[in-house]
Every structure is written in structure tokens, then in C-alpha cells.
């Protein structure tokens, strides 16, 4: 189908094109145009799949169903809004930090490269290609984390490279084991890694091998999701790289890694007839949720703080997918959406705030509302939304997850509520002085386009008040696909 190919070809063209003209003054605009074309083709694809049901490409390389098509659209949307933010931001960085032409070419080219890797991971029908694309996502972003070449940035990038590299090697071993189990029941070896074939044969796959495979895949992709105790790379990579990278890492990469994990879980559930995979995910998820909440309190760097908040939310989603029922799955899918939208909006705002203050240190960022009201209010509303205040969408999804927990694991609602409270306190003790405090003398405004932020936060608000008809149908289809029954 044309839309599908366009969606992969546009970023790929972007990689090559921007490798040559990425240093140009208008490269930021080219990046925006490419990203909006990607969004348009992903919408086209979404409409098609919504109308005609799951789509398998003739070569069986791509498989689109309700679960991944909404992530494809979300990825393209956040890619576009971040590209809009990135243009003035990177111009400011070029002047302030003296980033050379080569690095700007690298930055723009790899931005599109990352988008390509994400979309390839989401749309592929092959478990092996999914792994290749996930590793590709690390490879495209690792040099961007070290873009500023400070010792901290190089350290963060090295950690990111090594930890994610070793972590994802475990996922490759899991994939080999999965292939080993599948090759025993699926006659043609080339078919044995295709999702659609695997789902059909799930009940015949050997449970012992699949259990082992799941553990390796959980550790591997869990590293990328940022699950505690495999999360060490995440705050470093988020805090030391350029802010647009933090926005797309947090808003997209973590989601795609979780997507891979959930896909594998669907397969393992079909084979095991027990909830072992779910229990493992619940354990890791809850641990990440609690630990990250406490670490929020001890951060001094604003981007690190919000990256711990990402770990916390990814933990909650993993936990919800682990519970597994239709209600929890619906909640987790909704949470994935609202978290990506809110968190990328927050990182955009944080980027501007750091440019206003000239530092990322929480103690030095003061009086944002006085200096530049749009940035101050953006940060305030974004944080209110991510902390789970009604009427924002994060509240709705967290409420759904809590309800589902209450039904199947009542005693686990206690740690969940405590975790939410701890995280809330952690965010707000730092937020208040940054937004309302006395602005230091000589603090000036920066050029910032806050419209995408406002649009994203408005979406989150909308999802909190009333989920539109087509979207709820979409989530419902995905929920049926993952959990086997409808929440409605």
C-alpha cells in the first residue's frame, strides 16, 4: 500500500537529503516538512486500516493492525511537533554552544534516521527486523546524545551505547530462542519469525523455551523501556543530549520498546496458559514505578527529573499491561498516548526554560512566568497534567488502571496510590519555585514557538474530558487484540 511505503521512504529520503544540507539555515524547515509529510501518510494509513481492518503487505514484510497503527500515528505526530520545536531551539544552540556545520548535518540526518527506525520497528511483521530496528534506534541517537561533546555528554552517550547494546543483545538471544521454538512447529523457516504466522501457531509453541525466551526479551526490551534496575542509561541520555532528542526518546522510543514487549507477551500468553509473563511485567513495572517516584525527589537537573518521571510512567504502563484484563489494557493504551503527548510537550517547554535560565539546574531556573509567561504556564500545565490531575487525560488512564488493579489485585492499589503521591510531591516541590520564584536580573525571553505544546496539552485535556468516538473504537480494537475481550 502506498501510504505504508511513503511512511518509510519519507524519513529515509530525509536521512540522505539532510546529510548534505542539514547545516543550512533552512534545514529546520526541511525537517518540519518531511515530518508533516510523514504524519500525513500515517493518517492516510490509519484511515485505511480503520476502514478495512488489519493489513498485511503482499511480501509479508509489514503487518498493520489496530495496535501498531495508532502508535504509528502517535509517533509521526510527536515527530512533527518536536521538529517544529527543534528549529528555533537548535538555531539558538548553534549560536550559544557553537555547534559546527558537520554536527548540524548529523543532527538533522539522524533525527529522520531515528524516525525511520521507529516506524520500521512498529510496522514490521518480522520479530528479527524489529530487533534490528530497535538497535538501529540506539545507533542513530547515540551520537546525538554526545552532540555537545562535554565530558558529561560523552559519558552519557557511552553509557547509553553500552547498556542499551548489551541489554538489547539479550533481546536478540530471546529472539533466537523464539525462532528455535517456532521452527519446530512452522514448516518454512522463513515464516517462523513473522508475527502473523506466530500468532496462528502460538498454542503449539513449546512453553519451556518460550518462558526462557520471554525472560531474555523482557530484560532486553525492558532496558529500552527504562525498567528499574536496567534504567541507568535513561536519565543520563535524556539530560545530556539536546532537548528535542529527550522529547522524542521519552515520547517515542520508550513506547516502541514497550510495544515490542507487549507483542511478545501476547505470543507467550497464547502458549503458556498461565500469567507468568504478566506477573513478571507487573513486578518490574511496579518496582520501576516506586523507585523512580522516590528518585524524583533527589534530582537537581530539570531534564533528569522529568526523565525519572518517564521511568515512573513507563513502569505504570508495564504494570497495567501485566495485569492484562481488558480494562487495564485499555488504560495502558490510553496512558501510552497521553504520556507521550504530555511528556514531549514538557520536554519542549523545559528546553525553552533551560535556554531562558542558561542552565538545566533546577536551583537556578527561577521566575519563568514573569520572564516568559507562555513557557511558565506551559511548564505548570504540563506538570499538572503529568502528575495526574483531573481533568487531564493522564488522570483518566491512571484511574482506569487503578480500577482494574482494585478488581484483580486489590492490595496492590496501596503501593500504586503511595507511588502516585510520592511522584506528585517530588514534581511539585521543584516546580513551584521554578515557575513562581523571583526572576534573576537580566533574564530575557527566548524565541519559542509554544503552539505545538499548547495543541498537545489541549489533546491531553480533550482525552481526559471525552475520548472521541473514533479513538475509543480504535483503542477498543487494540484492547481486543491484546487482551482478547472488549472493555465496553
Amino acid at each position: 500500500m502506498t501510504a505504508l511505503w511513503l511512511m518509510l521512504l519519507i524519513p529515509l529520503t530525509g536521512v540522505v537529503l539532510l546529510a548534505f544540507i542539514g547545516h543550512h539555515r533552512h534545514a529546520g524547515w526541511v525537517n518540519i516538512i518531511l515530518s508533516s509529510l510523514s504524519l500525513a501518510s500515517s493518517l492516510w494509513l490509519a484511515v485505511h486500516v480503520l476502514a478495512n481492518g488489519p493489513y498485511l503487505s503482499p511480501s509479508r514484510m509489514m503487518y498493520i493492525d489496530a495496535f501498531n497503527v495508532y502508535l504509528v500515528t502517535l509517533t509521526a505526530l510527536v515527530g512533527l511537533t518536536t521538529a517544529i520545536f527543534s528549529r528555533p531551539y537548535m538555531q539558538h544552540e548553534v549560536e550559544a554552544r557553537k555547534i559546527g556545520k558537520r554536527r548540524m548535518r548529523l543532527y538533522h540526518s539522524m533525527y529522520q534516521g531515528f524516525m525511520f527506525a521507529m516506524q520500521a520497528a512498529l510496522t514490521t511483521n518480522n520479530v528479527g527486523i524489529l530487533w534490528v530496528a530497535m538497535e538501529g534506534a540506539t545507533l542513530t541517537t547515540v551520537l546525538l546524545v554526545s552532540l555537545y561533546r562535554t565530558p558529561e555528554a560523552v559519558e552519557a552517550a557511552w553509557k547509553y551505547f553500552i547498556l542499551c547494546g548489551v541489554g538489547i543483545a539479550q533481546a536478540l538471544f530471546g529472539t533466537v530462542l523464539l525462532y528455535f521454538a517456532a521452527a519446530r512447529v512452522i514448516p518454512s523457516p522463513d515464516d517462523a519469525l513473522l508475527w502473523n504466522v506466530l500468532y496462528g501457531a502460538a498454542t503449539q509453541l513449546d512453553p519451556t523455551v518460550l518462558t526462557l525466551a520471554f525472560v531474555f526479551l523482557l530484560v532486553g526490551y525492558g532496558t529500552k523501556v527504562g525498567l528499574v534496575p536496567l534504567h541507568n542509561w535513561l536519565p543520563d541520555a535524556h539530560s545530556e543530549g539536546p532537548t528535542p532528542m529527550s522529547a522524542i526518546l521519552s515520547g517515542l522510543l520508550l513506547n516502541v520498546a514497550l510495544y515490542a514487549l507487549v507483542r511478545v507477551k501476547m505470543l507467550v500468553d497464547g502458549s503458556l496458559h498461565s500469567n507468568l509473563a504478566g506477573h513478571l511485567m507487573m513486578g518490574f513495572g511496579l518496582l520501576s514505578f516506586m523507585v523512580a517516584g522516590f528518585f524524583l525527589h533527589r534530582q537537581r537537573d530539570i531534564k533528569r527529573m522529568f526523565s525519572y518521571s518517564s521511568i515512573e510512567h513507563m513502569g505504570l504502563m508495564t504494570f497495567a499491561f501485566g495485569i492484562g484484563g481488558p480494562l487495564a489494557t485499555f488504560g495502558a493504551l490510553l496512558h501510552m498516548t497521553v504520556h507521550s503527548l504530555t511528556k514531549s510537550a514538557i520536554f519542549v517547554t523545559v528546553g525553552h526554560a533551560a535556554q531562558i535560565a542558561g542552565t538545566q539546574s533546577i536551583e537556578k531556573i527561577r521566575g519563568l512566568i514573569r520572564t516568559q509567561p507562555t513557557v511558565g504556564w506551559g511548564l505548570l500545565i504540563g506538570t499538572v497534567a503529568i502528575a495526574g490531575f483531573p481533568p487531564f487525560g493522564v488522570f483518566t488512564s491512571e484511574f482506569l488502571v487503578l480500577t482494574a488493579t482494585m478488581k484483580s489485585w486489590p492490595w496492590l492499589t496501596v503501593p500504586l496510590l503511595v507511588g502516585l503521591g510520592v511522584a506528585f510531591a517530588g514534581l511539585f516541590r521543584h516546580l513551584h519555585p521554578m515557575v513562581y520564584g523571583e526572576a534573576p536580573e537580566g533574564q530575557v525571553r527566548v524565541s519559542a514557538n509554544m503552539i505545538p505544546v499548547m495543541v498537545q496539552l489541549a489533546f491531553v485535556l480533550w482525552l481526559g474530558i471525552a475520548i472521541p468516538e473514533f479513538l475509543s473504537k480504535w483503542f477498543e480494537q487494540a484492547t481486543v487484540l491484546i487482551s482478547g475481550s472488549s472493555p465496553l
Partner: protein
Amino acid sequence: MWCWKPGAEMELTQLSLYDQAVLLFAAAILFTSFIMLAQARIVPMIHTFAWQGALLAATTALVAYVTEHPHLYISAVMTFLLKALLIPWMLHRLAVRLKIHREMEKLSYPSMTLLAGAALVVFSYYVALPIIHLSALVTRNTIAISIAVVLLGMLLMIVRNKAISQVIGFMSIENGLFYSAVVSTYGMPMVVELGIAFDVLVAAILFGVFFFQMRDSIDSLDVDRLNRLKEADDSSLRAPEKLP
């Protein structure tokens, strides 16, 4: 070496020639992992890594020949070019350009490390037990060995503090994974293998870039010096230049 088939523990000499050859190569690959663990000098370590790649390619070619999986020949050639020639050559050149090729790395607790390595091999056999019982393939022992190679690669990354040794550890993990795919499932589908080879190649190039970035920013290739970022920030450790 025992064949892990319940109830039928065969003598080595009763195995077919092919099985014996595969087991010999497996033992040699495991041995190279141990050599890397014990080797303190950079250049011999790179050479050992190249030997491991060559043995891997030889095993792949042998499996391709005996089991008649012609696509494995392509994997064998790819492995040989990438793991036995290109990557070792790149690492060697980098070591010379960064003037670290004569350096000795200070190993802490070398004998303990080797004992830990031996323990890991035993552990790998334990992990592989459920799969080994299932396998209808001639190469049962080798699954455990492949897990052991992966774990030894990790151990290498943990005990060393030179960036280049860590890269070798990383690449040897990749070797272990590839080996597991060859011996347990006769390789992955071709498109996946090409993708993985591409990723490994790009990773190797990026590692080279990083060596220079590290040297420029922290003036050393000791990863121990990369200690500025802390889980919960202590401002005193974070930015020394800001101290009074």
C-alpha cells in the same frame, strides 16, 4: 564432553565425525573467550577476537556443509569478513592511532575472574538444560557454550576498564549470539542476518568515533573516568569547576 540426551550418555568416540568437529570448534570458541578474559595486552586481545570470529565462520561453514543449508555459506563468509577481518583490523588501527597498542591493562584479581568464568560456564549448562532436552539437533552441547560465550563477554566488560576491551567484550557477546543462532536453528532468516550484520558494522564504526570523543573530552580511554553523572545528584561531585 557429554552428550545431554537423557539416559544415553555416549562416549565422545561414538559420535559422528561431524559432531566431534562441531564440539571441537565449540571448545575452541569457548577457549578464545577465556583467553580474552586473561589477556592484559590490547593487540593480542584483538587477535584473539579475530580468531574467535574465524572459528565462528568455520563452524558456520561446517554446519552449512553437513546439514545442507546453503544460505549458511553466505553467513559464514559475512562473519569471516566482518568479525575476523574488518572489525579486528579497525580496532587494531584505532589502537595504533590512539597510541594504546603497547599498553598493558592492569587486571584486578585475574585468577578470580577466570574462576568466575568457569562458574559461568557451569551456570550456562544449567540454564540450557530445558532446551537441550528438547533439541533434536546434533549440536546440543553448543547451546550451553553459546550462552557461556555471551556471559563471558559480559564478564569481560565488567572487569575491564579500558574502552577498547569493553568493545571487544561487546563484540564477543555478539559472537555468542550469532553462534547460538547457527547451532540451534541453522541461522536466522537471511534478511534478519543481514540486518544484524549491518547493525554490528555500524556499531563498530560508532565505537571508533567514540574513542576519539572520549580522548578529546576526558583525555583518556579509561571508562573509570566516566564518573560524573550520578543517579541522585550530589552537586559537589557534579561540577568540580564550580567549587570555591
